[in-house]
């Protein structure tokens, strides 16, 4: 029994469709403490967004079949009634969505939508809720918040909208915040400001944050732990420092290759992962990544194709888990991958 603030155990989210069962999330486990950030990384369709909306209980009312447990402060969210879950939603667990232009209702003022989030969990007057919204807007750095509170989303800039979205997510001081690609649509400067803001607020409120992104650069800056997902499963899980310096799964290598070099080496090659994300309806046999894996020949006996590897500690041990048949991934990484993506780092390590 875990004692972590948030503990997700063997979470499965399956959608029955006319064509068969879609296993969007298939046996996901992780832990998260207060004041810490978990980065969940993966391509679209890897199950990262589905997993986090399930934590929020957004699957309820759909056809999704959910099993496993989601313990928040010792309470299994999956066993709560719809009404109990609704009361926690937005209050204990909040979500910050990407693309706030579509995530905010175009017909209501920003202030109205933020205040609404407050009033649903606090029995206060509209006026008080609005005052609270102004206060939150100010905290997230919106200039002239008492005036902008009456603006509509389309009157805000992209960065301001994202700030407003954060204000909406944090207005009830939630203990767990799920931020789904909060900076994707923003330019680099604004991106940095938003991430700084999130970090400041986290420090202030000791919030646990799940940061969903496909950008390992963002993870490097924000997260304490990182979970790499592929085809609904965790394929690598560990501290940020460990994973970024000693990645042991070829898929993670691919992700690293496709990130513009954080250290700013202009010569570094940007290598997209070949092939397409797998179908969740008919996932590949064995290791789901094997059809795209350039290293599968290094494993004897066609094992990658026939057998699903377990998520187990790698050769470096500790809390670094990986789901891969390769026996000496660290060696391959340093010899073949690192020189390609960050030649200047080879010497250091």
């Amino acid at each position, binding site marked *: 029994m875990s004692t972590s603030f948030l503990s997700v155990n063997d979470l499965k989210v399956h959608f029955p469709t006319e064509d068969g069962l879609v296993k969007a999330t298939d046996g996901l486990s992780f832990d998260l403490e207060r004041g810490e950030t978990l980065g969940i990384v993966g391509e679209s369709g890897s199950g990262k967004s589905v997993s986090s909306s399930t934590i929020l209980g957004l699957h309820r009312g759909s056809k999704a079949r959910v099993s496993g447990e989601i313990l928040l402060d010792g309470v299994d969210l999956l066993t709560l009634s719809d009404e109990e879950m609704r009361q926690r939603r937005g209050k204990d667990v909040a979500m910050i969505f990407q693309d706030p232009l579509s995530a*905010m209702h175009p*017909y209501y003022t920003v202030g109205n939508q933020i205040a609404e989030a407050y009033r649903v969990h606090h029995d206060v007057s509209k006026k008080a809720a609005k005052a609270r919204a102004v206060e939150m807007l100010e905290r997230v750095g919106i200039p002239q918040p008492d005036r902008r509170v009456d603006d509509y989303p*389309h009157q805000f800039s992209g960065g301001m909208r994202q700030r407003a979205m954060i204000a909406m997510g944090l207005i009830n001081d939630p203990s767990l915040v799920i931020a789904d690609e909060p900076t994707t649509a923003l330019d680099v400067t604004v991106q940095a400001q938003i991430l700084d803001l999130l970090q400041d607020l986290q420090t202030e409120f000791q919030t646990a944050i799940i940061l969903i992104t496909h950008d390992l650069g963002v993870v490097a800056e924000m997260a304490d732990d990182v979970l790499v997902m592929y085809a609904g499963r965790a394929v690598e899980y560990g501290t940020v420092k460990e994973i970024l310096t000693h990645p042991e799964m070829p898929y993670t290598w691919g992700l690293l290759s496709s990130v513009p070099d954080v250290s700013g080496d202009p010569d570094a090659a940007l290598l997209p992962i070949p092939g397409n994300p797998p179908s969740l309806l008919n996932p590949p046999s064995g290791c789901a990544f094997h059809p795209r894996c350039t290293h599968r020949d290094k494993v004897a006996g066609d094992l990658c194709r026939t057998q699903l590897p377990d998520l187990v500690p790698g050769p470096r041990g500790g809390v670094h888990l990986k789901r891969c048949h390769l026996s000496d991934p660290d060696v391959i990484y340093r010899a073949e991958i690192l020189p390609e993506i960050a030649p200047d780092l080879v010497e250091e390590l």
Partner: protein
Amino acid sequence: MGAYIVRRILVGAALLVTMSLVTFLLFFATPVDYARLACGKTCQPAQIEEVRKSLGYDDPVLVQWGKFMKGVAVGREFPDDPALRAAAPQLVTECPAPCLGYSTQTNSLVGTTIKERLPVSLSLALVAFILWIVVGVAFGVIAALRKGTLIDRGIVGIALFFFAFPTFFVGLFLYTYFAIKWQVFPIPRYTPIADGGVWPWLQNLLLPGATLALFYMAGYVRITRAFVLESMGEDYVRTARAKGLPKGVILRKHTMRAALTPLVTMAGLDLASLAGGAIITEAVFNYQGLGLLAGTAARNGDLSMSVGIVVTLAAFVIAANIIVDVLYAVIDPRVRVG
């Protein structure tokens, strides 16, 4: 906004003037000799010419239209022939501006007749409108929430059935069974509110209203269903759920609001065209509204009445368009103009 509305009204007025001219031109473009029609079967050519003159149909079309426009602007006197007016003052009918003309077939000022008939059509349109909006939207929402189930298919299917079924038969069926055979309702007869109060007015309107509503409902069920479904998949509805809002609030405040825009467009135009009369329903229930008036005028070749009705109806549609556009701005802040 104010300037925008003024501009729209001016454009609308210009459109009305054009519509009236087109009606005159179309009327005389048909091969039918309306003077002969008005004169009757036994008329000899000389009498037909007399009638043509007394109806003013012997003037060039543009002159006739000019007289009409002048009447609208400053009013007119009928009969048109000044000699006749001078000889027999008891025949003169004063038609103050905006004068829509004088019908020699109904022997009344067009404006007066339209004013008499309008309440009938408006009442019918209003009751039908409320019925189909309430029922159509409610069923549309239910169908959307139960998407893919038997309930959904049932609702959409029944709505389509009534849409496809001729209004005439639906009306006759309701009249025959509910009023005559089972006597659930009184024999429908238009009863102005001024005569008997709201309840008799409404009670008499329920059957014809339902007839129309059943026809129009299908569109509203489908559009509501489609837009609620679309809206339910929108990110902002997910946001609303993530905030912990109760289902009812989400549906009312977030989902429905988005379906409002297409509903307002449809409802505005439907209501406007219905205010101009629903000829079949009016005929079945003997509701003497603008629809029947227009039908009779067209059949009898009553130019004055036809023009008056066309202009009135066009005015409704133009006004409805302006109102719908203004409502857009009220509903959707993104549309608001300076």
